[in-house]
């Protein structure tokens, strides 16, 4: 088929993402990076960027390449750039991780790895944003897509700031060395990256996936619009406070901007909670599938993260416990949602790819037959339980306990990844139903060659 509605490279993005997610957790289990060393140590930066770029950003990009065209019923524009984007991101991430490891003193290459990363990673993100933004451009945008339109510029801002850091660390931007990037730009890099790019896009995706699979009414609600407006406006002071303050020489603006951002972000989250409750309560499907069940763990982690942030702000200990907060956001909310939705998206896309050609002509297995929900329930429970323990361990400054918790999340992740591989291989489908004549069993993570 020429204009396939199935995104060609999405499974490759997912496979790379899961590889980095598992890798980062292995490092955490063996005690590499925070909390064994400082939060800003190069070792920590290795783990952090394996999670945020390697796992979460590749996952989100891969998902959006599939999701955006379906959402607005338009083919992907510039589909040929999707693979180059992946290659740029992988090469750039490799350089970034290599550069950090070099900073940690483990080895020396004599190659300006961080400078390469500072070029390759933004290039990859710009390509991805070009394809997704170009597809969205001029289309009638339903609410979930409007969240993505905030996510994409946030992704670019995050990548740009990251590139500045990388070039600065590599010594290629001596002119900028005087500027205190760590105090001024690092919080923006983190907040816009996790909040604007990953969280906002994830919320947008959830607005479509949850009603779609639970058969809830998905007419646009006023509360959903408030989520968008409050969230989008909250990002502005976060992104602009520092540059405006230094431009106008009013550094005292930053704290009040932060208050505005937290307030608006809070409003956004409360209404998001209202919408989620609505979706679950008004679903037409009696039985909630494991993906939607497991997503509740992620939403709970989001509530916990917001509560923790407020508590840390109130007690003035944000700096001290930022590690625990970021861990909860990245592993509980974003990774939890990612894993739970992969558990549906991978079998669903696999089913379409394999059985699409015989649909309606021959009996096919159900999508649910590609996974074994009862067996996997325990792994999602274990995952969220261990994330909670891990966050608590970081708060209580118990690195030993944190490593044990990381071992638990790693084990659960590996079990879920195994299940996804089995789904791709159709191993859970009874043999007699597996391959009716005309079905196209997919490859593990590469597109079919035509």
């Amino acid at each position, binding site marked *: *088929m020429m*204009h*396939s*509605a*199935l995104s060609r490279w999405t499974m490759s993005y997912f496979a790379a993402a899961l590889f980095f997610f598992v890798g980062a957790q292995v490092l955490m289990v063996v005690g590499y990076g925070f909390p064994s060393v400082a939060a800003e140590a190069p070792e920590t930066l290795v783990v952090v960027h394996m999670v945020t770029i390697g796992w979460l950003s590749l996952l989100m990009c891969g998902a959006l390449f599939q999701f955006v*065209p*379906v959402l607005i*019923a338009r083919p992907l524009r510039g589909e040929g750039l999707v693979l180059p984007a992946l290659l740029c991101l992988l090469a750039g991430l490799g350089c970034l991780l290599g550069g950090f490891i070099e900073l940690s003193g483990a080895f020396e290459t004599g190659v300006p790895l961080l400078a390469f990363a500072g070029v390759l990673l933004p290039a990859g993100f710009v390509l991805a944003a070009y394809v997704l933004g170009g597809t969205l451009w001029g289309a009638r945008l339903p609410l979930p897509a409007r969240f993505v339109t905030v996510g994409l510029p946030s992704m670019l801002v995050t990548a740009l700031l990251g590139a500045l850091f990388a070039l600065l660390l590599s010594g290629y931007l001596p002119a900028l060395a005087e500027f205190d990037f760590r105090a001024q730009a690092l919080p923006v890099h983190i907040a816009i990256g996790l909040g604007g790019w990953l969280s906002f896009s994830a919320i947008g995706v959830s607005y479509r996936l949850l009603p*779609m*699979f639970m*058969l809830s009414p998905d*007419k646009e609600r006023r509360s959903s619009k408030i989520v968008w407006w409050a969230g989008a406006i909250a990002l502005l002071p976060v992104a602009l406070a520092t540059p405006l303050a230094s431009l106008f020489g009013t550094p005292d603006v930053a704290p009040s901007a932060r208050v505005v951002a937290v307030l608006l972000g809070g409003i956004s989250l409360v209404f998001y909670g209202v919408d989620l409750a609505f979706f679950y309560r008004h679903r*037409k*499907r009696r039985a909630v599938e494991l993906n939607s069940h497991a997503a509740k763990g992620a939403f709970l982690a989001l509530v916990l993260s917001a509560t923790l942030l407020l508590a840390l702000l109130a007690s003035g200990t944000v700096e001290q416990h930022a590690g625990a907060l970021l861990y909860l956001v990245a592993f509980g909310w974003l990774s939890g949602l990612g894993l739970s939705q992969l558990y549906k998206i991978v079998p*669903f896309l696999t*089913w*379409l790819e394999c059985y*699409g*050609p015989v*649909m*309606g*002509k021959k009996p*096919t297995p159900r*999508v649910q037959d590609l996974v074994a929900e009862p067996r996997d329930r325990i792994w999602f429970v274990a995952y969220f339980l261990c994330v909670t323990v891990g966050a608590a361990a970081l708060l209580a400054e118990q690195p030993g306990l944190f490593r044990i918790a990381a071992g638990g999340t790693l084990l659960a992740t590996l079990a879920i990844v195994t299940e996804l591989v089995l789904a791709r291989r159709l191993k859970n489908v009874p043999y007699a139903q597996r391959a009716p004549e005309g079905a196209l069993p997919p490859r593990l993570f590469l597109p079919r060659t035509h």
Partner: protein
Amino acid sequence: MTQPDYELDVRPIIAKGGEPFGAIMEAVATLAPGQGLRLLAPFKPVPLFHVLGQRGFEPTAREIGNGDWEVTFRPATGEQNSGAEVSAPVQSVDPSTWPEPAVELDNRGLEPPEPMVRTLEGVEALTSGQTLAALLPREPLFLFEELEARGHLWRGSFEPEGHYRILIRRG
């Protein structure tokens, strides 16, 4: 003893963009035993031959100029010239010339991908040229792709309530 044929001209209905299927079926329901239906249409309503054939009517069709057709459906028991053409399906891509749907499906309350599976099952059960109408929870991008790959034609639009209605003509 047989009454004269009941005459129904659906050309004004179709010219106004309306759906004549209801009017035709209403007319059929009012026919007396043994009475025939003389239908005037702006195209040769071949799929209707099939629908009414199942109700025991045999068609006689003749072109009356300007692309218009006169078709007389008579109860099959009556004496009838068997020369009626029941052959080539309408090849028009223009949906306004499509026959009324032989099947109507409401697939809104189904979990994905069931709406698509049921719709395609329905399409596969049609004979060439017949149409099927389906209500779907949303615009079905994956379905479009399958329809295209299988050589079927379709038109669709959003309904005011937010769901999507698709009319598919089997190729």
